[in-house]
């Protein structure tokens, strides 16, 4: 229900928002602080929400979001705006920064893949699903797809995505064979995407498909 309330205000023209994000990145590259403010005003809430979901601490979440905007500000000149939605890049950076903090807080070693060419790359790489185009209804569908997963599968995805556990750590936590966990995480993630119509279809056309 929170989702419906939170998303009651839908983007009236998401395409314009996406172009505006790319334009804001270009202006940030030129040193325009107003462009960073725009980006924050558009996406600060969804980024903060993700950081809170992972860190369960508002103070830490604030720092993670601040770090990410600092990185976006510094890297704006190098960001290739044709690679994908800026918001997707910001979201993946918030996740990786939050997980860095979470693992450090628990005394766990940083993720093995967490070095400049792995997790950071994943964050920097394009995320072709256009998060800027998502409607309330589509997010509700993704959420429903998540709820529909068997409990073990949902738990595995939650541990991997929100708790930042490696697949081996997830397998240990859930007392399941590693191979099973790996397959469950992959297939479960794909189910989320399958909840939305394929590319190029409008949401109306995609009704009932999945």
């Amino acid at each position: 229900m929170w989702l419906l309330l939170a998303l009651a205000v839908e983007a009236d023209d998401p395409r314009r928002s996406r172009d505006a994000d790319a334009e804001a990145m270009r202006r940030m590259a030129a040193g325009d602080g107003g462009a960073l403010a725009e980006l924050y005003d558009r996406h600060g809430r969804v980024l903060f929400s993700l950081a809170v979901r992972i860190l369960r601490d508002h103070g830490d979440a604030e720092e993670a979001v601040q770090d990410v905007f600092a990185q976006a500000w510094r890297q704006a000149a190098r960001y290739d705006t044709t690679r994908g939605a800026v918001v997707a890049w910001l979201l993946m950076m918030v996740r990786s920064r939050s997980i860095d903090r979470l693992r450090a807080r628990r005394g766990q070693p940083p993720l093995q893949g967490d070095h400049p060419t792995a997790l950071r790359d994943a964050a920097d790489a394009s995320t072709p699903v256009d998060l800027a185009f998502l409607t309330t209804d589509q997010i509700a569908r993704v959420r429903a797809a998540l709820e529909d997963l068997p409990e073990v599968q949902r738990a595995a995805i939650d541990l991997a995505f929100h708790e930042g556990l490696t697949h081996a750590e997830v397998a240990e936590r859930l007392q399941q064979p590693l191979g099973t966990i790996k397959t469950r995480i992959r297939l479960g993630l794909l189910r989320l995407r399958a909840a939305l119509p394929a590319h190029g279809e409008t949401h109306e056309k995609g009704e009932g498909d999945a």
Partner: protein
Amino acid sequence: MTTSGTDPRYDALAELALGTLPETERAALEAWLATDPAAQAQLRALRESLGLLAVTAPAVDPPDHLRARVLAITGQAPPAPALVTPPPTLPGATDHTDHGTRHRRATAGGLVPWLAAAAATLVALGLGWQSRQLQSEVDRLQADLRATEARLATTEAEVRSNRTRLARVQAESAILAAADLRRVDLAGQKGAPRASGRAFWSRAQGLVFTAARLPDLPQGRTYQLWVLTAGAPVSAGLFRPDASGGSSAVFDTPVSLPTPAGLAVSIEPEGGVPAPTGDIVLVGKAE
């Protein structure tokens, strides 16, 4: 996608997307990825899924001061918040104009250091006492917070452990209660005559598998469970026995799986293989 159900490299793509792929597996996976369009498509799909997962977090409004903190990064005077009422959770389209920041930066830039110096002097002169009071209050609150965090961590650990147990029991009972349940008894083969196993399979629910008296695995090897069908064997997954040689696990099997004629367990290289290569330890026909 026909091979994606059994090729373990597809599963490793999810680890790559999540940033958790072990370094040792990275080079091989990237080499494959560079040449295989199906793998590239799968990685794209997985990244899309992660983006979708990211936006399903329950919405929380950031505090007002976060905006000022973020904008302080630029070292420029912050522009007024965009007039969005209420702010959209997702990228919404709001019309933004250049708030004349460049112009304002030129004039505000010279004043800021003076204002900061003046503020610092005021604090030093008049507010020293008040700041000590505040500091002790902050110390007290921080101590409270640490105690609360410790309690929360304990509770969270309990919840996680209960959730894990519940998840496993639910998966097992769903399979065992399935209307289309089939049983397979597995007998030990040459290398492991004392080993035995039993499995229950349901097309809709998956596979519960238990085994006993399995031999210890050699270094770098794993047990892999195979579904024997009219065609090639299909991997159900990997498992390791406990110290006593016992194992109990739940496996997802694809709904499209042909009805199993039987099951087999073989010893394979760590990480599993797409088709069986090693010694068969257990085998059994479906009833």
